[in-house]
């Protein structure tokens, strides 16, 4: 069924990302967009999706979106809460995470991520928050989904700093690093879905959201982006998905006050 409701590009992005999560998966969730999409999946088609946050909660079922990575509603609804070292050593590095779900400030054509600095490291134009859990999530989770709004400032030809490795400079470069996970298998944006194309592992457009032109995608990408041989059109959101998403966001706004 297609949507009778109007929807925004952000809603399209979130719903497309949520659909990639299968019921019963263990999903290591970054705060912000990934947390939004993962909770939407849990509230729609994947009720037994296991949400894991780096602050320690395993199996969190927050009634509203957490504002921070360590909100109380994560701990209170989790099956248990482990220490941060245990989380990274036993659960992530231990190889027990199906999906690492991350946002990013900047990515390149091989799915590498910069969340450290814009400009020179020693004299940065802009200092970003830094690595957080991303490098090892991207290294050890069985597969990684990336989610961010597409723009030429975010999708750059060369990163100022490699904080988190996707496929490095492509080909078998990632494999040679000995990372245990497969790496980023999808980048979900407000315009399209990118997937790594073997053997180069360059990110190419695999699915275009309804009503988005190739020109617009190219203009929003800082490198000459390529399109897969057979590009799909992304299924538009269903009314059910849209209503669930809007309800979650409304409840979150109400809970956090003018917060969100």
């Amino acid at each position, binding site marked *: 069924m297609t949507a009778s409701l109007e929807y925004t590009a952000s809603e399209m992005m979130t719903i497309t990302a949520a659909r990639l999560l299968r019921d019963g998966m263990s999903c290591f969730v970054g*705060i*912000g967009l990934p947390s939004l999409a993962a909770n939407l999946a849990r509230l729609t088609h994947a009720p037994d999706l296991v949400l894991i946050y*780096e*602050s*320690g*909660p395993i199996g969190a079922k927050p009634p509203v979106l*957490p*504002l*921070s*990575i*360590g*909100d*109380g509603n*994560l*701990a*209170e609804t989790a099956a248990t*809460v*482990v*220490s*941060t*070292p245990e989380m*990274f*050593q036993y659960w*992530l*590095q231990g190889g027990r995470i199906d999906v690492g779900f991350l946002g990013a400030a900047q990515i390149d054509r091989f799915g590498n991520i910069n969340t*450290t600095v814009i400009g020179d*490291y020693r004299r*940065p*134009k*802009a*200092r970003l*928050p*830094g*690595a*957080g*859990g*991303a*490098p*090892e999530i991207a*290294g*050890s989770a069985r597969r990684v989904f990336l989610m961010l709004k597409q723009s030429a400032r975010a999708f750059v030809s060369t990163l100022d*700093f*490699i*904080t*988190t*490795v996707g496929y*490095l400079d492509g080909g078998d*470069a*990632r494999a040679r*690093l*000995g*990372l*245990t996970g497969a790496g980023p298998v999808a980048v979900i944006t407000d315009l399209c879905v990118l997937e790594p194309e073997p053997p180069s592992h360059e990110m190419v457009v695999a699915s275009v959201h309804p009503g988005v032109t190739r020109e617009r995608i190219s203009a929003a990408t800082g490198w000459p982006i390529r399109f897969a041989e057979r590009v799909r059109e992304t299924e538009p959101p269903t009314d059910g998905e849209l209503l669930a998403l809007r309800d979650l966001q409304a409840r979150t706004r109400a809970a*956090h*006050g*003018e*917060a969100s």
Partner: protein
Amino acid sequence: MAERMTVREAVSAFIHDGDTVALEGFTHLIPFAAGHEVIRQGRRDLTLVRMTPDVIYDQLIGAGCATRLIFSWGGNPGVGSLHRLRDAVEHEWPHALALEEHSHAGLASAYVAGASNLPFGVLRGYAGTDLPKVNDNIRFVRCPFTGEELAAVRAVRPDVAVIHAQKADRKGNVLIWGILGVQKEAVLAARRSIVTVEEIVDDLGGWPNAALLPSWSVSAVCEAPGGAHPSYAQGYYDRDNRFYQAWDAISHGRDTFQAWLRRHVLDTADFAEYTRVLAETQGRVTT
């Protein structure tokens, strides 16, 4: 045995200029009361350690207490940048701030190594990233059995660890629950430790295998009700998300930051007075 002290006495007795200090807390139980007291007592040249430096570190840095920061993610959770941290790094205001940055997994391993009295921790990490290029405390070791190369991080051994917990008993045994972060590791890795608590009780209660720090593993226990605000203490009060959002505007300019700091921290005697002043000002601040 932990000494029972006020926050003022503990900071004055255990935190000195030039110390390496870890005020830990992973969103939950962040020791704001103790952090404010460090600012009040005008500590300088501190090396601050924290996986997730947030608003209290922004305040310490903006107040000029720190010359070095060891961290893995620095931001205002759910809001955006730490403007005082950025101003120090980007424009050396109030002075330069040296950074030693890790990933969460790396810094967590460094705390575990410290708590375990090992000189380094081993992890699967950092491979292919630029972080080892800018942090000499990230190196690589070879497995003596498989020959595999793995990342190694230098152990973190703070002079002082400061954490906030829910409860202590009269002997100074400390009980923590909910999101634990690396607080226990920070205390065990440190030479000295200050634990502020919501309340001191006759009987901790607790449950099997509870996260407990025995009195003899802690230097000082200080009663500081509400001492994690605007962070939260599970079972006591919620996170003050409005404050974190308001902080974005307060901290954006140097003048507004300094005015806020003077009014709320420098000109207040203790955390109780800070709380009173904040109640007066918060209406205006957050709208």
